[in-house]
């Protein structure tokens, strides 16, 4: 370090001591304040400057509050998520809500849009044009009904039921597949859809003229076997 550097350091420390003293004394030759000729317009401009600064300060405060609120909300959501996920009774419904399929029904669109009339359905029934070649053991016909454009047969064994319905080719039939397992398959070379949920199991298949629906509380194998042995003459 040179002598100049040493002296500069000393001068700096002297300045650090002297400048506060200078500052504490009124500056020399400051003019005495007099009434300045400020008008209403000048006052307005000054107020505008101050208001602009206040508005900027409010914006800063609002941003700070919003940031804090966002952090608190995020922390609260995280805490709730941890709480929910740690309780099994809450976890399952939440996960089901988050992950469940939005498709509550599955549509099968049939190519033939001709209307089937009641007489068509009666023709199917009255001419014995339907043959149910397989009925699971213990089941017997409990109900039958001819509805508009459909044939309905209900089988029961006292504790379980299934029904067979046949509809003429319509445009679209909706099948309830909410919370269901879905499987597409072929039965007798006809496209079919198998749907399974906690309530019932359904097989739906169609050919060029009709759609066949076998629905009930019996298992899949029985439903498939019924469908395979279902004949429309």
């Amino acid at each position, binding site marked *: 370090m040179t002598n100049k550097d040493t002296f*500069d350091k*000393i001068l700096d420390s*002297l300045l650090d001591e*002297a400048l506060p003293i200078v*500052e504490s*004394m009124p500056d020399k030759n400051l003019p005495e*304040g007099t009434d*300045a*000729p400020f008008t209403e317009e000048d006052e307005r401009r000054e107020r505008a400057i101050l208001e602009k600064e206040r508005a900027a300060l409010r914006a800063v405060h609002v941003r700070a509050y919003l940031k804090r609120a966002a952090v608190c909300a995020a922390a609260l959501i995280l805490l709730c998520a941890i709480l929910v996920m740690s309780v099994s009774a809450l976890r399952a419904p939440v996960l089901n809500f988050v992950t469940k399929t939005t498709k509550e029904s599955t549509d099968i669109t049939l190519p033939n849009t001709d209307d089937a009339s009641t007489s068509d359905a009666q023709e199917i029934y009255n001419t014995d044009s339907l043959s149910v070649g397989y009925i699971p053991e213990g089941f017997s016909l409990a109900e039958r009904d001819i509805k508009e454009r459909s044939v309905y047969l209900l089988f029961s064994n006292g504790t379980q039921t299934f029904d067979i319905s046949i509809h003429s080719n319509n445009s679209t039939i909706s099948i309830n597949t909410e919370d269901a397992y879905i499987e597409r398959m072929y039965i007798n070379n006809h496209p079919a859809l198998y749907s399974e949920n906690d309530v019932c199991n359904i097989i739906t298949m169609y050919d060029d003229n009709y759609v066949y629906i076998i629905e009930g509380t019996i298992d899949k194998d029985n439903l498939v076997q019924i469908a395979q042995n279902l004949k429309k003459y």
Partner: protein
Amino acid sequence: MRKKNDYVSNVERLYRSHRALIYKIAYEILNDEAWAKDASQETLARMLKYHDKLPFDAPVEAKNYIARIARNTSIDIYNKRKKYNNLAAQSENLPIADNPVEELYITKETVNEIVEIIRNMDTKYSDPLRFHKIDKLTVEEIAEIMGVSVRTVYYRIEKARELIKDELRKRGADND
């Protein structure tokens, strides 16, 4: 202690209590009523911008600080309107003398002498020194207030130090 809470109201209070002084300083430099009012309002804007440097609780220091802001704001406006012919550009490029250190003596009176030298110094040099050392403004901030380049601010601060050294040297020689 320098207050930060509700600084707008505090700045407004200080400004209103020194507005006449600010105007007088500005008018002495600008010699025009409208320009002096502009300078007063610009001083208010700069007081708001550098509010954290304002010594709200120290009346004398606050007055000195405001006077410095007002003075330099007025000079800046004057320079920008190209009517100030006495801008020290002529002396800005002079090399700073580097006199031998052994000619300078430091005594217990040196601090008081430095106080007096600074108070009598051209404000063009003492203001940037005080802005920098007392108000802790950065060189860039000082340049903005004074309306000069950063390089000029550095030069003037160094020039102030050299003027102090020169004066101390002269007084030391006079005392011999």
